[in-house]
């Protein structure tokens, strides 16, 4: 993918020091109707780090990402950023991007409408939105796709648009929930390499969740198993 030198600086001055953790999850526990999904999970992500989180399906990976994103309130534990507790910060104010397994592009908007969605709700004017959208589409190698209906995209293209959409508002952390899970092996490996390069260019820390060890190795600076994160009883 392209270099990103021409992109505006993604985050402001709240970048953490190298030796500090950006994201810290401590003792997070979630149970649904009596069944334990997450059992006091501890995990931390450094300021430039891409963490690959490995676990079989149903192990609570998506739940952990939803807790981090602020979409789900944990029964116990806390999520903090730069040492500040995020409990009182709503999902839309956390500036954590999230990419789902199935791209979940908004079906009533075209490609440009999807990528520019976060910028529009932030109240940016139309010209700036258009500029940033075309930069991001170039970045994911889909230049000129802006007017396309999302139904016409292939699986790989849809996932790239979803990635561009998540990156557009310049999130300070990117959460990737098995983003290539629905794609075939070949495409998956290629996208994994691309995403790794992209995240390092942007300097955006990320949590990449997958059940595939090879993919985790490809993307992550560090690979951890979700089952190793729970505190011993």
């Amino acid at each position: 993918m392209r270099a990103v030198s021409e992109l505006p600086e993604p985050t402001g001055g709240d970048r953490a020091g190298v030796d500090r953790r950006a994201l810290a999850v401590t003792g997070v526990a979630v149970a649904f109707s009596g069944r334990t999904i997450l059992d006091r999970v501890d995990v931390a992500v450094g300021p430039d780090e891409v963490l690959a989180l490995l676990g079989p399906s149903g192990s609570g990976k998506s739940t952990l990402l939803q807790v981090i994103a602020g979409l789900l309130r944990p029964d116990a534990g806390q999520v903090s950023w730069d040492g500040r507790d995020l409990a009182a910060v709503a999902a839309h104010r956390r500036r954590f991007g999230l990419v789902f397994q199935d791209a979940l592009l908004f079906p009533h908007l075209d490609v440009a409408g999807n990528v520019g969605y976060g910028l529009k709700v932030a109240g940016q004017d139309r010209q700036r939105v258009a500029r940033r959208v075309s930069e991001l589409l170039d970045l994911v190698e889909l230049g000129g796709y802006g007017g396309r209906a999302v139904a016409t995209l292939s699986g790989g293209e849809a996932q790239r648009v979803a990635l561009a959409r998540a990156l557009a508002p310049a999130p300070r952390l990117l959460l990737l929930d098995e983003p290539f899970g629905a794609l075939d092996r070949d495409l998956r490996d290629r996208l994994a390499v691309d995403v790794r390069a992209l995240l390092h260019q942007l300097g955006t820390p990320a949590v990449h969740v997958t059940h595939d060890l090879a993919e985790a190795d490809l993307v992550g600076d560090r690979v951890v198993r979700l089952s190793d994160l729970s505190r011993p009883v």
Partner: protein
Amino acid sequence: MPAWLLGLVPAVFLCVFFAWPVANILARGASTQGLSLLRRQQLWRIVEFTLVQAVASTALTLVVAMPGAYVLNRYALPGRRVLLALVTVPFVLPTVVVGLAFRAILPASWIGTIWVILIAHVFFNYAVVVRVVGGLWGQIDPRYALAARTLGASPWSAFRTVTWPLLRPAVLAATALVFLFTFTSFGVVLVLGGPDTVTLEVEIYLRTAELLDLPGAAVLAVLQLLMLGLVLTVTARLQARSAVAQRIRAPSARTLTAVATLGQRALAAGVLVTIIVLLAAPLAALVLRSVRVGDSWGLTFWRALGSVDASTTRFVAPLDSVRVSLQYAVATAAFSVVIGGLAACAVAYSGRAGRVLDAGAMLPLGTSAVTVGFGLLITFDRAPVDLRGSWIMVPLAHTLVAVPLVLRTTLPVLRSIDPRLRQVAASLGAAPVRAWATVDLPLLRRVLAVGAGFAFAVSLGEFGATVFLARTDTPTLPVQIVRLLSRPGQVPYGAAMALATLLMVVTAAAVLAAEALQGRSRVGG
């Protein structure tokens, strides 16, 4: 045998008993005597009131029912499915029963005002919004809104920019349906309204039954047909434009959220209170009024149903109309199953001719009941087909209304049958008719029973067309109830309440039984 031949009987039925009467109304309406009515200011006041009450009823229904559509389809409430089924009951109740229920619960001074009519219309159409809008809402993947949240959208902004556009086609469809129902509402307006709340439907009835002004009634019917046609065309256009051609269903069944926060609890409680106060209380009041004699409780009114006390020589004993209604309902169920079943086969197995028949069979549902009854009345009162005073007029009219329902329940099942099953049967040596009889018919039988249940319930409650066609000596239950209501005294009034209670129980039982059977046939098919 070509498949379209199956459609011959339903097509002839529709032409004779629907197209011909409507054409007859158009012809009568074009007379100079009738057209002079259009210059009267009083007529335009009626048109205006009809429109105003329909728009107000529709808006009010949407406002009241949207939270219910959301909560009942998105929240993991205990007993959610039972609640959804119960909410549907008011929609299938006869209009006359609903009218009586509101007479039972509201102060007498409210009767005859527009407010009672609006409230009764919300009661009736609550289920339309909950089923149509909520049905879609329950299927939209909740992660769309979550995706919007992580992109910086507040909960309200995520609703406005993502959920609402996805929901819009269903909201439009529900709005069109509620408008259609309230625009042509007759029983409710007749029972609860007064001289200030005359709608087109009521005026058509009054001109026919009391003023004997057939040309005038015909003009009004034509006017109403034109307005309905306009509304249906406009909404079809709007819907085509806002449809989102995309899979939006959640891949997993988990679209329900736990009721956790204070706001969620408050919303759920608000919806439950609405259901209890708006939907359950009037029906409970109806039952209570039927056993409330003066200041004490008793079965006086129920006993009066079988006696001549409640009736004079001109009136038939109320209990007799139970027998009449049941006979008509059985006849309607039989006619509708034959005609609707044949129509469904013709539509499913043949191409273009089938689509024409499908559209044609749905037309009576978009026409007002009063128009259907009035058309039949003025068409079959002389040669070549003189059915004046024949019992068959009532079940024929009911069949026109019930056939679309039978068609809509049967068609999806027929279409879901894998044609290869028939080929397998053929390869095993079954002739085409035998292959059909062994593969399709067993599935068809069950779903036709469901359709019969719905047709039975429709016939029991139908009022708008029946009131034109029922003979004086054989009134149906709804007609008898309205007659009792028009008589002075406490006993006829109480007997009307008792009869309405009876009608409510039988109708609700028929519909719930049909729905239960339908649920099982889906699993089986």
